[in-house]
């Protein structure tokens, strides 16, 4: 290795030794991942998105605790009730006092349209508390509990932080439950795409020749078919009598069957170009087996790129599931996902009078945006040529 403290002829360059040891030493020992992390840290937007996403996934994990109610709890007279404001101070004749509460509703029924018009009623006060005892649940299916992060002291009281839907169900709770389904379907789908994509893309790129040609043709054909009609066809094929869980997995399978082509294309491209790289040839000449060459030499050089591509594939999946459920051919009630929630907002008139029904759409936008920024940040950090 070249000694940066001396000239080619051996003369010592003054001051160079000290300067070298300070900065370069740490860089010399930094692994690929550390370097990536340092570059990633600079990308403020990606960092913020990363934090947002961690929060979203935390919500998805602790759904039962965070949601005030279960998904089917309803107060039918309060269908389409507008959101309530959480109030902190109670103004009574004695003065002001800290008391977490919400106001109730008073409604009048329009004679002609038979629609209800809601008005906030300051005379009805319902106490709200943190870590309140509420409906019992089983977190993740087995941990029993009945404490909720926030909720009304009286479990029958109206508490609609984001308003009520068509049947008088709390949108806030349903939104939280929907987070779990919507955010995980993306992950599962992407995993499946990953396996398919790496396998087929790798084979195609590494071996080339006729295998490559055939797989390429298949990918081309699949990619030239417009995805939504394809999804619609596949999704509509799911028998209506299958259980929600089975439907869930079928949907992710469908999404990944179309999605893998994108990943496979990327993997194939990388394998193709890496195959002829000098370091691969050197590894082979060194006597490494095929598997060794692939795993120890080729894969590390593009794994960061794969991670970035994956991160960018997840939002596609989320949008796809939302779209299908929105149309009514994806997940169906009683399963709750953001798409299922949005289906209620399909009617513009309904949306116009109850705009809070659009909240799941906002959730989709935030999640998709964060994932895209994160993916961009990872991709930029992983790019050795920037």
């Amino acid at each position: 290795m070249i000694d940066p403290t001396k000239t080619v002829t051996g003369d010592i360059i003054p001051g160079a030794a000290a300067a070298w040891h300070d900065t370069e030493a740490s860089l010399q020992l930094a692994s690929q991942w550390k370097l990536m992390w340092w570059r990633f840290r600079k990308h403020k937007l990606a960092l913020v998105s990363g934090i947002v996403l961690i929060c979203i996934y935390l919500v998805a994990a602790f759904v039962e605790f965070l949601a005030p109610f279960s998904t089917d709890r309803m107060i039918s007279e309060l269908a389409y009730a507008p959101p309530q404001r959480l109030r902190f101070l109670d103004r009574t004749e004695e003065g002001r006092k800290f008391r977490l509460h919400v106001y109730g509703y008073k409604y009048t029924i329009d004679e002609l349209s038979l629609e209800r018009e809601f008005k906030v009623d300051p005379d009805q006060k319902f106490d709200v508390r943190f870590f309140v005892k509420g409906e019992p649940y089983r977190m993740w299916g087995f941990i029993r509990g009945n404490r909720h992060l926030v909720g009304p002291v009286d479990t029958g009281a109206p508490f609609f932080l984001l308003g009520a839907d068509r049947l008088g169900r709390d949108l806030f709770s349903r939104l939280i439950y929907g987070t779990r389904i919507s955010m995980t379907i993306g992950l599962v789908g992407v995993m499946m795409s990953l396996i398919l994509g790496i396998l087929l893309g790798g084979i195609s790129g590494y071996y080339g020749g006729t295998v490559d040609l055939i797989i390429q043709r298949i990918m081309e054909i699949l990619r030239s078919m417009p995805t939504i009609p394809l999804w619609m066809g596949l999704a509509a094929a799911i028998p209506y009598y299958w259980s929600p869980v089975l439907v869930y997995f079928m949907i992710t399978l469908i999404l990944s069957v179309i999605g893998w082509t994108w990943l496979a294309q990327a993997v194939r491209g990388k394998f193709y170009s890496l195959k002829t790289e000098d370091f691969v040839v050197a590894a082979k000449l060194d006597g490494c087996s095929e598997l060794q060459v692939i795993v120890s030499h080729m894969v590390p050089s593009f794994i960061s790129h794969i991670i970035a591509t994956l991160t960018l594939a997840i939002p596609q999946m989320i949008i796809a599931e939302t779209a299908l459920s929105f149309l009514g051919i994806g997940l169906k009630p009683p399963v709750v996902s953001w798409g299922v929630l949005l289906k209620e907002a399909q009617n513009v008139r309904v949306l116009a009078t109850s705009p809070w029904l659009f909240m799941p759409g906002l959730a989709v936008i935030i999640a998709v945006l964060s994932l895209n920024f994160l993916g961009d940040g990872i991709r930029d950090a992983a790019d050795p040529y920037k």
Partner: protein
Amino acid sequence: MGKYFLRRIFYAIPAIIVISFVSFLLIQLPPGTFADTIAAQMMESGGVTPEAIKAIEERYGLNQPVFVQYWKWISGILLRGDFGQSFIWGRPVGTIIWDRLGYTLLLTGFAFLFVCILSIPIGIYSAVKQYSVGDYIATSIGFLGLAIPGFLFALILMFIGFRFFDQTVGGFFSPEFTHAPMSWAKFADLLSHLWMPMIAVGMAGAASLIRIIRANLLDELLKPYVVTARAKGLSEFRLLIKYPVRLALIPFVATLGWMLPQLISGATIVSVVMSLPTTGPLLLRALLGQDMYLASSFIMLLSVLTVIGTLISDVLLAIVDPRIRFQ
């Protein structure tokens, strides 16, 4: 050039064959057939006998093996232009799909125009004037299109239209123009209904293309041939358009081909949301009702449209980039 064109067509043919098969297969996937749907209907209106179901199956050829059914359908299309019969509407598929497809093409075409008109100037501007106000606006549009999927965008637009402009969406023409012959007034009416779905469908595509043009142009602006052009005495504007933009447009055209299936997809779903007379809503109904020939024909034709689109864009690419022609 001609050889290249012929080669591409040659490769497209097996693709179309496979697509037709896949489209047909798709509708066979759900358990049961149209006969069951009829049976369910008959159940409600009075009773159903096994013989009746058998008769329906015979009549529509539903009890034969898949390949036979497929062959009958394909040969019908190729030899007689007969796409089969729609079970739900009881009419030949041909009478239903063509104007629907026409409208889909119309919407997709306009969305495509929207994408080009929006993304090219904005992309160029934000690359040339990096970090300016215009660049930030462009980046923001980029994010909007990135994060908001077409159907959500459609919902938002409809909401804004309804709440603030008291405009409802539904169809492409106002009642007075629906059956009137084509005229400038009718065209203007069409445009006034078209702008919302056009933006909803095209936004995502426009957003990603702005980013692509910007990134590519930034790369090209640093290349040596730009300096050479300047050294010849060209003005900045002329050399911008003639050289780096021309080269940055090459990946743009390449992306266009891949964007076409996306636009058609988007058009499908946006039409459902906005109740437009295109293929989307009809396809949905056909799928849910297992209207075999109608659904398969739709899917196949939409895919064929995309294949043709990619073919056109490949040819465009060869025109724009001589390097492809000669290799």
